[in-house]
């Protein structure tokens, strides 16, 4: 039977390092993905992810379980992302994993999908990523947490330390900016692409 986060946290707090490593295994990819989408750089996202787990491990004795373990991890990761952005004093630089996606897509798609299609998908992904860099950090983070991590408005509000209404406003404004960006780049709607 798979242990819950809470059970693993309890064991970790009792000194079982392996239990903590199971938590790491469970959460490393979501945390890395969160960092990557917020700061937009693979190498730095890795650094943020590993620093998140290291800090979590060190701070484990102080974790009282008021929040979910995942929310606690997200908070640590987001604080690190915010520090990174402030330190660099720049908006996230979305560094598309140029070779990575294409190669993986090529392997996944086999001979059915043409090079043109692959390049087109890569290009669309780049346009979306570029659009995300246009957003202020708060809007971008709200969208990432909602779209890719499925958090509720309330959970996002708790993580961002703002009212629920602010989260909704950030999401609306962020999506609207993205919509304009995608339209300006000639990206048609999904339905439109399907029809064509």
């Amino acid at each position, binding site marked *: 039977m798979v242990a819950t986060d809470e059970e693993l946290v309890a064991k970790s707090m009792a000194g079982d390092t392996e239990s903590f490593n199971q938590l790491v295994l469970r959460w490393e990819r979501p945390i890395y993905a969160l960092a*990557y989408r917020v700061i937009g750089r*693979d190498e730095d996202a*890795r650094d943020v992810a*590993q620093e998140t787990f290291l800090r979590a*491990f060190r701070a484990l004795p102080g974790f009282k379980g008021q929040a979910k373990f995942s929310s606690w991890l997200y908070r640590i990761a987001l604080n690190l992302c915010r520090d990174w952005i402030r330190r660099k004093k720049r908006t996230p630089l979305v560094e598309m994993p140029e*070779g990575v996606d294409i*190669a993986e897509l090529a392997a996944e798609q086999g001979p059915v999908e043409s090079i043109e299609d692959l390049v087109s998908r890569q290009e669309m992904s780049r346009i979306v990523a570029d659009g995300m860099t246009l957003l202020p950090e708060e809007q971008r983070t709200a969208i990432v947490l909602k779209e890719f991590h499925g958090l509720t408005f309330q959970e996002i509000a708790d993580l961002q330390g703002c009212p629920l209404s602010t989260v909704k406003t950030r999401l*609306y404004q962020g*999506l609207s900016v*993205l919509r304009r960006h995608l339209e300006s780049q000639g990206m048609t709607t999904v339905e439109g692409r399907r029809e064509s």
Partner: protein
Amino acid sequence: MSMTFTCDDKQTLVAYLYGEVDPAERETVEAHLAGCAACAAEVTALGDVRSELGLWAPPDAELGFAIVRNAVRNPVRNAVKRSDAPSAPVLRPARWWNTAPVWAQAAAAVLVLAAGAAIANVQVKSGPDGFSVTTGWMSPALSEPSAGEAGGRRVEGPAVEEWKTALVALEQQLRTEIRSGRAQATRVAAPATPDEATLRRVQQLLAASELRQQRELAMRFIEFSRDVNTQRRADLMKITSSFGEFDERILRQRQMMNNVIRVSSTPQQ
């Protein structure tokens, strides 16, 4: 929320978009959307944006973080790779210059300085005007003190000799240390030591580098294919265009020939 919905209620619109509304709110919003084309279009467009966001995937990075206790050198928990799987340490990956011992870094710095000084032919002289430092490629004859500098005392000779001796000793120490380090690393049954961890980390970095190179190669190949394809299309267009021009020319020539035939076949009066 009130049971009415207006076009400027964007917060409820977003809540509806993400399905975080209760059934009564949903009904209210849907009733409004049924009669308001602008709001209905906005909901559709924002829904499309959400779909487009799905295209944005992070790279499939090799992670594999794990935490282990390392009581030998550092009482604080250290992080190393999990089992033998290719993975990265939890601790910020040590840059290559941080993986060498401090004394080796110092020795390397001295060697670099010495090499730099040798290349630049640095000379330190003391004379009536005080100490002077000269650099540059100068032949020994040229670097001899002139008559005016006869009173000057050259100090670089013995100092350089001592320096060289010290450097040779340092280099030998460095070589010995590296040799002993290699011997330790090749011991199969040796217990886990910080040096082995470093070696593993270097291997990880190498593996990651290879992976990056492979991916870059794949990307280059795809870029190349795309370029070839683009060129092929351009060539085809050019050929098509050339054929068009050729057809026009033939047509003109045919018309000219017809005119000539017509004129020549007309009986002259």
